[in-house]
């Protein structure tokens, strides 16, 4: 019996101790008419070697195409040590560290992670993860509406240049609580959403918060200082949505404008998580000290034990659902603990300089790729201005057709921007992280040239 150790003798002894004749008798409080008749359609169990054969076939079927898609999930080098240690049984098969004395390993990892995230974002405090970047943004919006004492407004300004899936996810998750997300268009020439653009969109009424992505979905970089100061001048809280690898190069949210962003969140995937079809990743959420009691999710704290020795424990649990129930800051319980472990080891191994080298290589590769692709007639940058590691390009042919033709040769050529922003069509968002080589980028250029040329 898979994963069940009982011998027939064990079962007989155990039933005798219980005073039951059969295992079936143990279900005798369940009305007989509710008992399942059968599980038709569920196949019989297979030994591990057969399941392995099936899964290997399916994994191979999806291949390992050369990928130039970013759009919120990025392929980076992950040191071998990261997942070898993360999947040690002591991390992999432990529960949420409620019994602190028997969970000091996980708890110290959480504390180190929080420390690293505050260092990276320049914020005061961090929680110990949410599900992903989009759901972290939803929690950040709920938090900002609760935390903004200067207004009772439940309206939040959201640039249309924020990741489309983040906008959809956030709308779904906060909409039922009466929060209104008002979208602001970007400047069509720069792709950015500067103060003038925000001024035009925000009426004179009160607003709870502004969401400020850096970089934005279309790859461009915002003037975060002036936008942050403008929002604070209007009594809005500022929620930064940031890429943690980009933060090795770019100004951290804690230093935006005169006072810094109030909350910073984002997707932790670039910190040691494989693409893996979109998850499991980890959402991070950091904020100013003043808002710590509004933070949702687990938080690890350092304290002393009965003998005065340093130790770690989950703290501020009065915010959480298992204590406060309907009055909790969020319903979140299970979060992304194992991914936090991976991200912590990843950041420890890379260090500040390693992460900066990765970020710089991503930036340089994307510039190189842009230059190569723009050698092709009709391909040119969609916006002026700097980018981090994603570039929006204008294409001379329908994007979906081009991407299909590239994929037929195992190159995933980028994200179809026009599918989300019809006014930009035909347009392509490309990304070249530190993993992409000169040969790979040349191969992409040559194939794109061929695909576009074949169209005449």
């Amino acid at each position, binding site marked *: 019996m898979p994963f069940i150790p009982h011998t027939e003798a064990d079962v007989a002894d155990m039933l005798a101790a219980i005073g039951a004749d059969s295992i079936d008798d143990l279900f005798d409080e369940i009305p007989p008419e509710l*008992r399942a008749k059968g599980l038709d359609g569920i196949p019989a169990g297979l030994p591990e070697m057969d399941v392995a054969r099936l899964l290997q076939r399916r994994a191979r079927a999806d291949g390992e195409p050369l990928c130039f898609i970013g759009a919120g999930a990025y392929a980076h080098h992950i040191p071998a040590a990261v997942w070898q240690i993360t999947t040690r049984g002591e991390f992999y098969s432990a529960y949420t560290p409620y019994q602190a004395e028997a969970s000091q390993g996980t708890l110290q990892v959480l504390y180190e992670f929080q420390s690293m995230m505050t260092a990276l974002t320049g914020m005061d405090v961090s929680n110990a993860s949410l599900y992903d970047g989009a759901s972290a943004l939803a929690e950040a919006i709920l938090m900002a509406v609760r935390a903004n004492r200067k207004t009772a407004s439940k309206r939040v300004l959201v640039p249309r240049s924020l990741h489309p899936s983040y906008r959809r996810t956030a709308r779904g998750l906060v909409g039922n609580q009466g929060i209104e997300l008002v979208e602001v268009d970007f400047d069509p020439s720069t792709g950015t959403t500067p103060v003038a653009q925000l001024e035009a969109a925000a009426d004179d009424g009160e607003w709870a918060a502004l969401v400020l992505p850096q970089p934005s979905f279309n790859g461009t970089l915002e003037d975060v200082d002036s936008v942050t100061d403008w929002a604070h001048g209007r009594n809005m809280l500022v929620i930064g949505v940031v890429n943690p690898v980009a933060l090795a190069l770019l100004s951290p949210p804690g230093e935006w404008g005169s006072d810094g962003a109030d909350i910073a969140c984002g997707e932790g995937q670039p910190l040691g998580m494989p693409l893996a079809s979109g998850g499991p990743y980890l959402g991070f959420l950091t904020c100013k000290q003043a808002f710590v009691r509004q933070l949702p999710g687990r938080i690890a704290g350092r*304290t002393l034990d009965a003998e005065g020795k340093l130790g770690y424990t989950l703290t501020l649990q009065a915010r959480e659902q298992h204590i406060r129930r309907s009055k909790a800051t969020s319903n979140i319980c299970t979060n992304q603990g194992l991914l936090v472990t991976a991200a912590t080891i990843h950041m420890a191994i890379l260090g500040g300089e390693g992460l900066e080298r990765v970020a710089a290589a991503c930036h340089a590769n994307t510039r190189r790729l842009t230059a190569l692709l723009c050698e092709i007639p009709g391909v040119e940058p969609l916006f002026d201005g700097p980018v981090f590691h994603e570039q929006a390009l204008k294409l001379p042919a329908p994007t979906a057709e081009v991407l299909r033709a590239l994929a037929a040769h195992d190159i995933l050529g980028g994200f179809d921007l026009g599918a989300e922003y019809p006014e930009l069509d035909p347009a392509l968002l490309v990304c070249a992280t530190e993993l992409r080589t000169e040969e790979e980028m040349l191969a992409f250029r040559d194939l794109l040239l061929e695909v576009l040329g074949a169209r005449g």
Partner: protein
Amino acid sequence: MLIQEQSRPGRMATAQAPLDMADVSDLPAGLRRKTRAALPEVSELQAVRHYTRLSQKNFSIDTHFYPLGSCTMKYNPRACNSLASLPGFLARHPAAPESHSQGIMACLYELQDMLRIVTGMHAVSLAPAAGAQGELAGVMMIRAYHDARGDTARREILVPDAAHGTNPASAIMAGFEVREIPTGSNGDVDIAALRDAVGPQTAGIMLTNPSTVGVFDCNIQAIAATVHEAGGLLYYDGANLNAILGKVRPGDMGFDVIHMNLHKTFSTPHGGGGPGAGPVGVSKRLEPYLPVPLVVKDGAAYHWQVEKDRPESIGRMTAFGGNMGILLRAYIYARLLGAEGMRRVSEYATLNANYLLARLSNAGFTLAYPERRASHEFIITLRKEAKEHGTNAMDFAKRLLDYGFHAPTTYFPLLVPECLLIEPTESESKEALDGFVEALIKIRAEAKDRPDLLKQAPHTMPVRRLDDVRAARQLDLAWRQAQAQD
């Protein structure tokens, strides 16, 4: 010592980063970071040794019996991890075209189907990232259903007082109000109180069955009829699905919507606090509202269904459609078990729980519901021991750690004083269970003779009992901040 405290300026794991610092001088200075982020500067070996040693400070299923009630800490087969980590699965970008996704989509489609069958529901979405997100998706669908019918006065969700805290918290996040329903003395929902509570304001009820007190609610059919007659829907919290997997199906009990915790019942790991996966299953009338994406099959080809294909959907719960790697692990586990194996899960989980209950009862421990069968878990109350020796449930729990057993769930559910909620799971052997019983008997003897041994426990862990009050009052949540305070 923290990894940050091992940092030395100029040290790094050189093999792991690009050889050179590429030129980024085109980035405007005003947008640049002014000082490098203060991440640890350590060698690769230092990091490896540090985190390996930290791992050794944890209890885990792989190292210890972990009878944590309501958490289903069973063996996580290693094949689920290694096969879900095949290069083709790890490398796939979430926006990869369907032409390069048929392998994983086949797995997801079949998982949807197996979960649908084993729960007796009409359709399943794998989108929610954890149990609490599954709950939220579930109550959002209940809301969408009533709203679509113009039945907008239904703004109240009923929740038994023994429910997990996530239930009321999820209902609030979906914009509902919460009304608690008391639990009767036999552990079942107080059906008279339920009848008084339902009305035109009732949107639905959130129910765990078997409940958090470890018994199967015998009145489930009457509860379903009461709520349905009042116009409400029934939500099934799948936290305890391990107790009935393949034996009883929530769909057959009359539930309209359910979530499953794959990190419990389908043995994807708990990971020290996630990731989980919380798929939702629905009856026919709620199908249009399922969260996206879904996988559908057309001939031999698999396709995604997203917002534009399902206009009435409550939407997406995360940016990319869920914890795919966890869903793969659950799929692998389901294929290893098959239909028979799934049924055996609940049978042997129930056998183990009732055996532990019988042995502890015979040894003189007080059962919270002595007249009831255990489901896959049960409650003992240490009220007597607390009164006689001044040793409470937490003292027993901490002392168990010294004996090499993770503690059961303590002080939950809140309605049983000094309780331990014990869930052994099907993957534990009789010897492991016997060892646990012996330890509890010894600890009870210690409580009588040397109560301080319990009150000061644990004695053998990396730290002694921690000062939680200090942790909450003198907040120390990040290393850099801590240095600034010193």
